[in-house]
């Protein structure tokens, strides 16, 4: 029972920070506390959030994936140039998702089969996907497609002023699927087991190899899906987009209370982490006086606080080291 509580303390802390930030911003900026802003919070952070769902699997298993920003960029420019050539979006999007997943599977295979450090392999993957994005096309490309226009018009009206945009709907679906997969399936439990202790997971007869390859496949899929959502959101493909994005994603997961050593964490925490990013960003926009670099400093400080907090927790709790 005690372990249960101490494992959930980081999550409670994260939710507390989110609520504090949200309430403070609502008090400080008139118009912040509205359904419209809340709905946009999900819509604007869908790209970060979707990639973070995949990253949560990776970090839960004790690994890391540095390639998500580049895979995202590759997906956006691939879709944009396929559409320009007259390919139907209904074919282009699944193709892009399949390539992203295969790319992740390839990295997972190298990491698993040859016992290589995820840090280096995904670093290589990052360079590779970025370069490939520029090979597809060197400059950004706008998307003009009736399908895109209808997606961008899509949304669930909440009130006469607010509506839940399509990107937010996709995010919520991915999040729900992530929760299901992480916390309610055998695969999810295997991920936790691999992250907790890979050797014992193997000795218990769990399919460690398959799980690890699947984890990176999922992360690649999520990064590609984030790219698809990015094309919805931006209405264009850009090979230079998402530089440093992987670090934002990792930061969102860590702020969400997932331990980087693996084995402890939750998708709900990651959602909270991504929303904290969003609240700070929206508050900076509302304020107008503060510049965007304050976001970086605030996120850095939050990371510091959360990691120190986690550290004290894992020292006092029974978590094996």
């Amino acid at each position: 029972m005690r372990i249960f509580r101490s494992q959930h303390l980081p999550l409670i802390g994260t939710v507390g920070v989110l609520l504090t930030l949200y309430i403070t911003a609502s008090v400080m900026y008139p118009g912040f506390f509205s359904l419209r802003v809340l709905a946009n919070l999900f819509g604007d952070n869908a790209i970060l959030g979707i990639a973070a769902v995949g990253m949560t699997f990776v970090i839960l298993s004790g690994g890391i994936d540095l390639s998500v920003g580049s895979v995202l960029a590759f997906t956006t420019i691939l879709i944009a140039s396929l559409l320009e050539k007259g390919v139907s979006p209904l074919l282009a999007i699944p193709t892009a998702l399949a390539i992203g997943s295969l790319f992740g599977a390839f990295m997972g295979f190298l990491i698993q089969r040859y016992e290589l450090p995820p840090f280096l392999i995904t670093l290589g993957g990052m360079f590779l996907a970025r370069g490939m994005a520029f090979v597809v096309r060197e400059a950004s490309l706008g998307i003009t497609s009736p399908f895109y226009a209808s997606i961008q018009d899509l949304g669930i009206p909440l009130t006469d002023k607010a509506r839940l945009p399509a990107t937010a709907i996709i995010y919520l679906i991915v999040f729900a699927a992530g929760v299901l997969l992480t916390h309610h399936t055998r695969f999810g439990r295997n991920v936790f087991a691999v992250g907790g202790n890979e050797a014992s997971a193997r000795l218990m007869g769990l399919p460690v190899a398959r799980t690890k390859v699947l984890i990176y496949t999922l992360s690649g899929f999520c990064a590609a899906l984030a790219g698809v959502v990015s094309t919805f959101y931006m209405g264009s493909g850009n090979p230079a987009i998402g530089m440093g994005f992987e670090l934002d994603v990792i930061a969102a997961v860590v702020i969400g209370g997932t331990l980087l050593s693996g084995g402890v964490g939750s998708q709900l925490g990651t959602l909270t982490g991504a929303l904290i990013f969003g609240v700070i960003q929206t508050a900076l926009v509302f304020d107008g006086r503060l510049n965007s670099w304050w976001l970086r400093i605030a996120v850095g400080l939050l990371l510091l606080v959360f990691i120190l907090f986690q550290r004290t927790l894992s020292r006092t709790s029974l978590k094996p080291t």
Partner: protein
Amino acid sequence: MTDSLGKVRSWFSGGSLFWPAVGLGLLFIFNAIFASGFLNIEVRDGHLYGAMIDIVHQGAKVMLLAIGMTLVIGSGGVDLSVGSIMAIAGAVAAAMVQANIGLPAALLAALGIACVAGLCNGLLVSVAGIQPIIATLILMVAGRGVAMLITNGQILTFENPGFVFLGNGHFLGLPFTLTVVLVTLALTLLLTRKTAIGLFLESLGDNERAARYSGVPTRLIKTLVYVFSGLCAGIAGLIAASNIKAADSSRVGEMLELDAIFAVVVGGTALTGGRFTLLGSILGALLIQTLTTTMYNLGVPPSVAPVPKAIVILAVCLMQSSKFREHLLALAGRKATA
């Protein structure tokens, strides 16, 4: 005789310089054949000019970062914040020079702040016990914001001749940046191979607990390693600012931390720590720079340059994996018997 041979060997201990040297050699041969005038070095105004000189000059930043990174990785850690520290150092120096504070004071202040940034990393790793990737990730994310704060989001330009000399000047006919790299390298080699510090570092990277039980001041060494990496990043940041006569906080040193890690790993230092080779890292840094220059020479757009880099990383990783080598040997064996 054997004693001196052993000594020479100990200088190279940690990894074989053979493979990075072969890689670099192949690239040079490739360039010599396909890029006309690659081997030409001409003397203009008493200074040497040429493609190879240019590689050394352009590669100075990564070489400096790689020197610091080698020690960090040798101790079993990694430092992701070097790019951000570069931005901070450049911003501080440019802001102070612009405010007409003397150049020595500005440079010292910039390097001092770089050391403090490294100290923050070091304390987080050694005292708070945070994983190095994460501890340095914090500064990587926040550091660039701090640099933007110092320059107020602007690109600060300067004309101070002394500062400009640092990244563009010549010394003994060679780019001054080369002198900076060589002095840093020589001091680091002396410090790590002629004193016990190198041994301490390797024992720390190999087995921290065992090192501590044998009386190695692990916390102090660990902290100092990150301070040193910060210092190297600071110097690289000053050179980067001087190169373009401006402090561009948002772009300087972007992704350079990954180039530095790449240089160290290609050079033969294992990411798991425990042994390191400074000369290998220098070769690795030169390899990256030559790769980039080769791309330019071949007319490959600079944006596509990450692809060959990625292939080299993956190849090096695979060759370092004992499983992969077994796999290859097994394949070769099967072919031989068939």
